[in-house]
């Protein structure tokens, strides 16, 4: 499946407090309602910009550093973020994203400008920068994570297999 959407570009070391602040994440377990606060402390307009047509969140190194809050990938999913593209990810966020079904792609994001139109086909491993007319190579997910993502996340994987069934 190919997803086409605009790139919204940010910098290095985006932490999970920026993705969803502690002052919001404790208020409820309603991710739909919380999504309006996604990325708020970094870009108060994020939800307004991304939610209508969807978008790719593009960043530099160490995306998702900090807390283990799974609200971080969840509010991004509920703000209509299609995937995160970054040079590198912090490990807890990386797992949480896969577990909740949010695609994460490690690639050279210097090849993407803010506002560029991108198309991503995860299964075929193709990422195109439509605006610049370039292909951006990326490494496939480790097999275990690809399997979890293909199953729709870890909870769905468990339901399907009755426990861990990873190679």
């Amino acid at each position, binding site marked *: 499946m190919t997803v086409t959407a605009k790139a919204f570009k940010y910098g290095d*070391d985006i*932490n999970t*407090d*920026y993705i969803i*602040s*502690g*002052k919001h*994440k*404790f*208020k*409820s*377990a309603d991710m739909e309602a919380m999504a309006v606060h996604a990325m708020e*402390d970094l870009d108060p307009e994020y939800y307004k910009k991304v939610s209508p047509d969807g978008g790719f969140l593009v960043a530099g*190194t*160490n995306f998702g*550093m*900090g*807390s*283990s*809050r*799974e*609200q971080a990938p*969840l509010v991004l999913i509920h703000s209509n973020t299609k995937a995160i593209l970054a040079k*590198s990810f*912090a*490990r*807890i966020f990386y*797992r*949480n994203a896969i*577990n*909740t079904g949010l695609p994460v792609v490690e690639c050279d994001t210097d090849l993407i400008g803010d506002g560029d139109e991108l198309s991503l086909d995860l299964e075929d491993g193709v990422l195109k920068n439509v605006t610049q007319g370039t292909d951006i190579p990326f490494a496939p997910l*480790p097999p*275990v994570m690809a399997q979890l993502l293909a199953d729709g*996340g*870890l*909870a*769905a994987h*468990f*339901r399907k297999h009755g*426990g*861990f069934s*990873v190679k």
Partner: protein
Amino acid sequence: MVVPISGKTIAEKIFSAHSGTDAHAGDIVVADVDFVMGQDGTTPLAIRALEDMGVDGVFDPAKVAVVMDHSSPSPIEGVSALHTMMREFGKKTGVKVYDVGCGVCHQLIPEAGHVVPGDLMVGCDSHTCTYGAVNVFSTGVGSTDGAAAMASGQLWFKVPDTMKVVYTGELQPGVFSKDLVLALAGSIGVDGATYMALEFHGPVIDALSVDARMTISNMAIEVGAKAGLMKADAKTLAWYEGRGDRAPAPVDPDADAIYAAEVMLDASAIGPQVAKPHAVGNVSPIEEVVGTPIAQGYIGTCTNGRLEDLKVAADILRGRKVHPDVRLIVAAASRQILLDAMEAGYIRDLIEAGAAMVTPGCGPCVGTHNGVPSDGENVISTANRNFKGRMGNSNAFIYLGSPATVAASVIEGVITDPRKYFMGGEA
């Protein structure tokens, strides 16, 4: 007979023992976990994930605990509903519930002996790496990973490479384990050890108390690490006397273990360190920030809310007053620590100096309650994170330091070098 390729790190040995494989860095293993923990910011989503998995209980109620610490007692009705959900989960599954006032999860779990040296555990909180200080491979995971572990007693892991961190020399007066770990963050950066385990070694670590070691392991995540491991020595084993009902099984690294990287830091050359807004890696020697005005000080958290932290602060503040333009907020990391600190007189010293005591727990660290700073204010805190907005206001500025640095600073109303209290002079 198979000849081993090389020796193993602590992480490789613990993963080998818990997965029934000959685990080496880079391997993917499904491992048995000895304990699973969640807190009030993460447990509600774990309960929901268990429902999504179609699972009705936990693998072993004696090996799971949930803790209300991040927003506790509840400041708003939304949180009250989440706390109720956790209490009902406890009644339904039989897992241990640590309710309002018990303390911070990362003090309670080792304090109760839920984990012992040699264990593998996961917690739905990034600072779960704290128990590396007592030789437990403990690591933070999200709610769905936590739910999978609660359901099955297992989780998949990539066995991490290990970075060996050696502190040489000798800790100087007025300098503490917080300063050692801030110096590391300043040196290798906030992603310096991403995907790796840290192993801390050397005479400086050996000389630290278990409390002080926990401060260092607690901040392993701040350099991106999965775990912050230390060997279990006689101090560790003494600390475990009377805690829990399982015998410690200490794990040492092999002499020929292979490390992905090695970092040496000379403790003799490290003075008090301060992480400046808005990044934990934005570390300076205190000399560079001395004189910065502050409006609030906070002593507490899973990093520095333990008995010896309160003692250091009380020793500095005894007979002195918090500056009239400054609020000092103090939270003990657990009810037991609060009781011990009361017994020792530290709490009286702190309150007489002007401190506001809040409930054992996370206090104002994560911006949910107990002291949200105002626009433009500077805060000096013993916590582990100073991200913009962390304490609930993105227009405030958070500096991180040791309990001694916070205590010295709240007296003068500006960031202050605490060493003058340790030179045999003023104190």
